[in-house]
C-alpha cells in the first residue's frame, strides 16, 4: 500500500504545482520557467526555519511569503522584458538558484542537502499526508475552475490570443500576466512544502530541471482551459516513468533515464501539438 499511497501523493503534488503552470503556460501563454525556484525557495525556507526552532505554522507562512516576494520580482521582470528574454532569464534563474543552493553549504547543506525535515504532528502517516494533499489539490483546482469562469480567466485566454487586442479593450495585459506569475509562484511554493513533508529530505536536485520538465510536459499536454484534461494529463505524466521500474536499469542512471524520457516525450508533444498552443485566430 505504501507504493500506492506514494503514487497518489505524487499525483496530488504534481496537480498542485501544475495548477499554477496550467494558468500561466497553457491558458495565458506565458512561458514562465522560474517556478522551480519558488518550489525550492519555499522548501528550503521552511526546512531551515523549522529545523532552527521556528514554529511550523510560522515557517510555512515565511516560506510562502518568500516565494510570493520572488513571484513579485519575476512579475516585475515580466513587465520589463520581452517574452523571449523573460523565458531565457527565468531558465537562467533555475540554474543560478541551483548554484546558490550548492554553494551556500553553511545554510543549505550544499550538495549533501538537509535531512529530517520537520512536519506537523498530525501528519503521522502517509495516508494523512495524502488526504491533506488531496484537499489542497481540490482547493486549487476549484480556484482555477472559478478563475477560468471569471472575467480574469477570459482575460488570460485573451492574453494568449493577442495581447495588443487585450490592451486595446482596456485590460492591462502586463498586469494580467504579472498576476498569473505571482499565483504560479505561490502554488509552486505550496507544492514545495508538501513534497518535502513526504520525502523528509531536501537537496538541490529536488527542484530544478527534474521538476521543470514534467510540469512543462503536462502544460503542453493539457493545452486547453479544461480542469479535467489537466488532471488526466497530470496523472498520465506522473505515472509514465513508472514503466522504467519494469526494466533492470542500474540505479545510477534511473534519474537520467527519467529526464531522457520526459524530454523525448516533450519533443514529440511539441511537434505534434504545437498548433494547438497558438492562438485560435486565423492567420491571414
Amino acid at each position, binding site marked *: 500500500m505504501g507504493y500506492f499511497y506514494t503514487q497518489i501523493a505524487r499525483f496530488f503534488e504534481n496537480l498542485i504545482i501544475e495548477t499554477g503552470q496550467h494558468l500561466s503556460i497553457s491558458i495565458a501563454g506565458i512561458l514562465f520557467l522560474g517556478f522551480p525556484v519558488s518550489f525550492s525557495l519555499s522548501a528550503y525556507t521552511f526546512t531551515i526555519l523549522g529545523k532552527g526552532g521556528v514554529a511550523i505554522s510560522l515557517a510555512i507562512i515565511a516560506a510562502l511569503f518568500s516565494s510570493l516576494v520572488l513571484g513579485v520580482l519575476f512579475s516585475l521582470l515580466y513587465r*520589463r522584458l520581452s517574452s523571449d528574454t523573460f523565458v531565457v*532569464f527565468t*531558465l537562467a534563474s533555475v540554474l543560478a538558484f541551483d548554484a*546558490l543552493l*550548492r554553494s551556500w553549504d553553511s545554510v543549505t547543506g550544499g550538495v549533501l542537502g538537509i535531512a529530517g525535515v520537520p512536519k506537523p504532528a498530525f501528519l503521522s502517516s502517509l495516508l494523512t499526508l495524502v488526504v491533506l494533499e488531496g484537499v489542497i489539490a481540490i482547493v486549487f483546482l476549484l480556484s482555477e475552475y472559478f478563475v477560468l469562469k471569471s472575467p480574469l480567466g477570459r482575460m488570460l485566454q485573451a492574453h494568449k490570443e493577442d495581447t495588443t487586442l487585450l490592451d486595446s479593450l482596456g485590460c492591462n495585459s502586463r498586469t494580467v500576466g504579472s498576476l498569473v506569475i505571482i499565483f504560479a509562484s505561490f502554488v509552486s511554493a505550496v507544492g514545495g512544502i508538501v513534497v518535502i513533508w513526504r520525502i523528509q529530505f531536501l537537496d538541490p536536485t529536488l527542484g530544478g530541471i527534474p521538476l521543470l520538465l514534467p510540469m512543462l510536459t503536462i502544460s503542453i499536454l493539457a493545452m486547453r482551459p479544461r480542469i479535467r484534461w489537466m488532471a488526466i494529463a497530470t496523472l498520465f505524466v506522473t505515472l509514465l516513468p513508472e514503466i522504467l521500474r519494469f526494466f533492470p536499469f542500474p540505479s545510477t*542512471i534511473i534519474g537520467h533515464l527519467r*529526464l531522457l524520457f520526459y524530454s523525448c516525450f516533450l519533443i514529440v508533444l*511539441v511537434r505534434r501539438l504545437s498548433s494547438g498552443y497558438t492562438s485560435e485566430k486565423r492567420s491571414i
Partner: protein
Amino acid sequence: MVQILIYSFVMGTQVLLLALALFLVYSVSKVQNFALGAIGAGIAYALYFSISAHLQIVWTILLTIGVSVVLGIINFLLNERLTRKQEHLFALLTSFSFAIVLESLISIVFGTDGKNIIPGILPVYEFGVFQIPIPGLITICFGVMIAVLLFFFVHFTPWGRMLRAIAENSFSAESSGVDSKKVRFLVYIVGSFIAGAIGILAGLNTALTPTMGFQLIIMAFIAFLVGGVSDIRGTVIASYLVVLIPETIIGSLEGVSLNWKMVLVFAVASILLGLRPNGLFVRESRKS
C-alpha cells in the same frame, strides 16, 4: 588581478563565440536555440571517446566532424518546421528538450564525473609573471580567427548576403529567390561546428562534465540578451562583462568560492537587463 583579467578574457572569448553562434541561428530563424551548448558538450565527449579509445588521428577527426554534422542536422530538423510556422517559443522548448536529451545521454554513457580530454597537466605559456594555459591561448587565437572569418563571411560573401537578407525579412528574401531553408541548414551546421569547438576548448580549459554545455549556453544567452539580440557590438561587450565582473568580485573577496560564479553572473545580468532591457546599445523604438 591581471591573472583574473587573462582568465576572464579566455572565458569571455568562449562565451562570445557561443553567443555568436546563437546570434547567427537567431538571425535566420528567430529561435533562441538552447541545444547549441549541449551539442558542444556532445562533440567534446566524442573527441574524448576517440582519444580514450586510442583511435587514429584520421578517425578521431572524422568522428568529431561526423558527430558535429549529425547533431547540427538533428537540431535543424527539430526546429525547421516550427521556424517556418513562426512558433518561436515552441522551437525554444524543443531545443531545450533536445539539450536535456543530449545531456542525459552523455550522463548515461560517460557518467557524471569530470573527464579530461587529454590526461595530465597541460603546458602553460608564461610571459613574465603571468601565465596562460595553452588551451586558453588557443581559445583566444581561435576566437579572433572565427570572429574575423564570420565577419568576412557575413559581409563579403553571397551566402552572407543571403543570411543578412533572411535576418531582415525572410519572406522578402524568399520572394527574391533566396532558399532560406538551405541558408538555415548551413547556419545550423556552422553553429554546430562553432559549438563543438567551444565545447572542446572548454573541456581542455577545465574538465568535461555533462552539464558544462548548459552552463555555457546560459552564459552565452545572458550575454546575447544583455548585449541586445540585434546588436553584435553589445553581444561582444556583454560576453566579457558577464564573465569579468563576477570573476573580479570572486577574486577580490576572500572566502568566496568559484561556485558562486553563476549566482553573480545572474545578479549582474539582472541589473544590466533591468537598466537596459533591450540591450546595451539598443534604443527602444516605437512599435508602430
